[in-house]
């Protein structure tokens, strides 16, 4: 997955001082990849938010008479085997796919930061936590996700947990590496000398300076989550099919790929556009926030 190409050592500590300042925002707005990515992501987000307005009918509303309608004026994206409108299903699918992606990102951020920070800051925990993450990373990622999803029973929540678990070790490692570098910085040493508590040093001094690589990583985790959710759904281990995610749409459509190819192509395209948007966004963020590794999309 793309996120592992992100440098595991933090860089540009100096740049962090400007992190949340307007300068960064201005530079991002000038970065072409970022802008294109942001536009694509916003578009998908809008579709997801306004799905009830975009959808001409309920996504589960059947009309057997109108089944397998190819795209036309009446049905811009066609209809499926039960005559359900694909516009509605893809729009609502955006909701679920993004929600699962967001869930994975949040869970991943929370645990990744916690474990990464603990491992980086407390040397005694480091060995154990890193072996644990090695063990989790020794599993082929999708098999681990399938195993967890099967263990917890197929649902959207399970999909979120399964995918988050798979990527937490990777995020934790990136954060640990940042913490290790920042820990040695003068201002941290000064706090320690001044007798500040571990919690204060970790959360007030160190973590705010580790945000850049984390944000970049999370944008890729999001992309990964959207792709992997589709895999889980395809295998029948994702969200229940009554709330259509894009993976479920592909999986349902593939039986009819010869006679009704739009059922497979449209949701696949939706996934591709979203992931593309997220990748572009991630590239932009990386170039601006974490300048050591330049992908130079501008």
């Amino acid at each position, binding site marked *: 997955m793309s996120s592992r190409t992100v440098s595991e050592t933090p860089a540009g500590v100096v740049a962090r001082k400007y992190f949340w300042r307007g300068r960064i925002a201005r530079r991002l707005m000038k970065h072409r990849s970022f802008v294109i990515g942001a536009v694509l992501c916003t578009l998908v987000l809008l579709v997801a938010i306004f799905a009830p307005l975009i959808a001409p009918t309920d996504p*589960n509303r*059947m009309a*057997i008479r109108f*089944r*397998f309608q190819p795209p036309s004026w009446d049905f811009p994206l066609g209809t499926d*085997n*039960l005559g359900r409108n694909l516009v509605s299903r893809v729009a609502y699918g955006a909701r679920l796919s993004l929600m699962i992606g967001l869930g994975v990102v949040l869970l991943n951020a929370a645990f990744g930061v916690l474990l990464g920070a603990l491992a980086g800051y407390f040397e005694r925990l480091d060995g154990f936590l890193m072996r644990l993450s090695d063990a989790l990373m020794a599993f082929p990622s999708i098999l681990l996700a399938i195993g967890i999803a*099967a263990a917890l*029973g*197929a649902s959207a929540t399970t999909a979120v947990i399964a995918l988050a678990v798979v990527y937490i070790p990777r995020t934790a490692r990136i954060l640990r590496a940042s913490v290790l570098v920042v820990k040695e910085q003068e201002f941290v040493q000064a706090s320690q000398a001044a007798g500040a508590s571990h919690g204060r040093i970790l959360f007030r001094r160190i973590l705010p300076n580790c945000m850049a690589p984390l944000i970049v990583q999370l944008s890729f985790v999001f992309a990964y989550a959207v792709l992997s959710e589709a895999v889980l759904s395809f*295998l*029948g*281990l994702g969200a*229940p*099919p*009554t709330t259509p995610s894009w993976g*479920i749409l592909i*999986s*349902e459509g*593939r*039986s*009819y*790929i*010869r*006679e*009704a190819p739009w059922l497979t192509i449209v949701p696949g395209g939706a996934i591709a556009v979203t992931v593309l948007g997220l990748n572009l966004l991630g590239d932009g963020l990386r170039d601006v926030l974490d300048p050591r590794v330049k992908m130079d999309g501008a």
Partner: protein
Amino acid sequence: MLLWSRRIFQLAAVATGALYANGALADSKICGQKGGDLIFGMEAKFSTLDQHANAAHSTRNIAMNVFETLMTRDENMSPILDLAESLDISADKKTYTFKLRPNVLFHNGKPLTSADVAASFERYKRVGVDRSALDGIARWETPDPQTFTIVLTAPRATFLESISASTVPIVIVPVEEASAAATHLKPIGTGPFELVELVPDSHVKLKRFDKYVPNAKHKEISGFAGHKEACLDTVTFKALPEPGARTAALEVGEIHAVEDVPTLSQKRLAENKDIKLVRLKNAALNVTYPNQSASPTDNVKVRQAILAALDMEEIMEAATDGAFDLNPSFQFPGQAYYTEAGKELYNQRNPEKSKKLLAEAGYKGEKVTLLTTRDIPRAYTTAFVMSEQMKAAGINAELLVLDWPTALSISMNETKGWNFFFTGWITVTAQGGAQSLRNLADPSNVHKPKDNKSDPIFMEAFQRIANGETLEERKKAFADAQARALDQVMAFPFGSVPKIQATRANVEGYKPFFNTRVSNVWIKR
């Protein structure tokens, strides 16, 4: 009079002599040409070929070309002898004496003896899935190498129906393999084909067993028995799980036959002169059964209300993309036990009646959970459309969609958390009679009746199906049982589904059946 009385079997034995002279002639007729490798595209992946311990349809498709049974079902699902050449039933109807066909060899070269049969029965009793078929047997004996005798504790009219059932057949394996643990059986049989290799998820390759001697008593294949010959050198069953890819592979000539053609592709294939469609009109019964232990389906009025609301035509139309027959019976039309008893309860489309029944039941919008799986698209779509129809009738239906192993295990082991389970009855329905309703009878009741005891009125009728002296009595009993099952909503059919298969035009002798049979199939060059 018994349908398969002693006399019929003896007549058959006499006829053997007359037919024998034509044996050689019949041979050349069956295989127009010999040789070649037939590639069969299959839906499902393959797992162990241990036919005793595995009830999977996909296993039978392959294993039943390798193994044979003492007795099985013929093309019309009546019992028929296969490895036995005669059966003699004692006057007290307790002792069944099978004479084995001479000159039958296992694929390992060893001749078949009654010791192998006894060992196979022993193993089936130990690990066989349908081992209840052997209930009521006092003992079996092997008086000589060609004779196998079964002694019952009490006469049982449907005993032969039970041991010949082809759902999980009691295949005969060599005595030295019969100690294998469940699923570990080596696939050594007596059938016309022997196993070359099995690569799960990919393919299974069979080759002709050169020392196979066809059963000369018959002219044609019948069920899993009859006159079987391996015309082909080899047969490769190839797993092609993507339906689109499977059909495409047939169209481009990559494979010679497909197990299942999607409804939408049938028209296109029918127009293709390189391809022949093969149709088995009634291949599966699309059914559901409620959980009678979970609220609110523990209330018979709620169940009746749900049944009253349903439009079976819409459900079947959606579930099969339009290829189906409405069918109110737990039998397929044309089967001996087929009956329309209770027909008025099927396909009622009566929301008013439904509302009335719900009111009587005091239904307050409790959740009704329809448990299904997306691994079987037909079951899923059936459940989906049924849930929509229930909602329209004011019932709080909710789908619970899990992967097949989980869903199946919940339906089998849990009495809470689900209200309806969706499946297809294929061979149990095809077997006919008591077999077709055994899922609703003790002890294998699937609908979780209170205290694990099925409805007494139904059970009374079921006992009459199992033990009735004459076919007429048993048919009457079946009608009673079906009417009761529908009235109490112990299970109900949505309709029957055909099986459409297809072969290349140069494939000859392929006959549709519930499972794939590659004997007597040949390729014209």
